[in-house]
């Protein structure tokens, strides 16, 4: 069961942006590992961190907390954070937590790369 707390993350660099794509549910057990992965990606990103949530069918408030933390780290380092490709179930938690207006959320990865 030693791997159950890890989350697979695909990363890709495009210009001054790093695109991170976590795969699978993000909950209390995996949020800490995602946090590590995101701060690593943020270090590598020159100007922009894009989180593609296409392959995240589920997220709980630990996942949301991790993203809020990442947003704060982005602000500190003067980089931009954009979320894209949210599934309906995941979008619903952002709405419930009234965070849909706090994060920059767009549809596609391309929009995320270009979002102002």
């Amino acid at each position, binding site marked *: *069961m030693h791997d*159950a*707390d890890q989350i697979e993350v695909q990363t890709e660099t495009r210009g001054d942006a790093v695109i991170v794509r976590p795969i699978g*549910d993000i*909950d*209390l*057990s995996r949020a800490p590992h995602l946090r590590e992965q995101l701060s690593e990606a943020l270090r590598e990103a020159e100007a922009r961190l894009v989180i593609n949530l296409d392959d995240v069918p*589920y997220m*709980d*408030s*630990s996942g*949301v*907390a*991790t993203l*809020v*933390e990442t947003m*704060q780290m982005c602000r500190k380092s003067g980089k931009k954070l954009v979320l894209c490709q949210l599934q*309906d*179930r995941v979008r*619903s*938690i952002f709405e*419930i*937590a*009234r*965070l849909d207006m*706090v994060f920059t959320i767009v549809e596609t990865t391309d929009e995320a790369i270009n979002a102002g």
Partner: protein
Amino acid sequence: MNDVASSPHLRLEMLSQARLLSAARSMVGNFAQRLGFNEVECGQISLAVDEALCNIINHGYEKRDDGRIWLNVWGLEGERPGIRVMIEDVARQVEPDQIKSRDLDDVRPGGLGVFIIHEIMDEVKYDKREQGGMRLTMVKYLSSDSRPSSSSNETRHEESSHSGKGNTDHA
């Protein structure tokens, strides 16, 4: 079956381990689907249960992984069909009115779980158990939005779609 005093349809005893959350919430989400909740609602019910379990792990058992949690689930029938979830622990007791989320305007990590639970569920009640530990009872009722069709909750395209007893005599 509808009697609140009757034994639950499902009663899961689990350890206070984050890695067990996904099994627990998938059980509840799946049961909710069979009760007729639509896909988004099933996700939300799973989320409410997940948040409640996270809080027991984090605050009740203070991240110990050998605490015990009991997750009881009933399908409600009759006039107000829905789902009833009762979660019990033998962890630290707190005053029910101390269990509340922070102000949402103050955006910072954490402090959303209890708010989410209240947003999703129609009834939420925390009690101190006489035998020690806490009890959380939550109910969500089926609404008119819940059932786009009698047995599937996805929106369906093309073709004739029939299901249910009402249709079986048209042959």
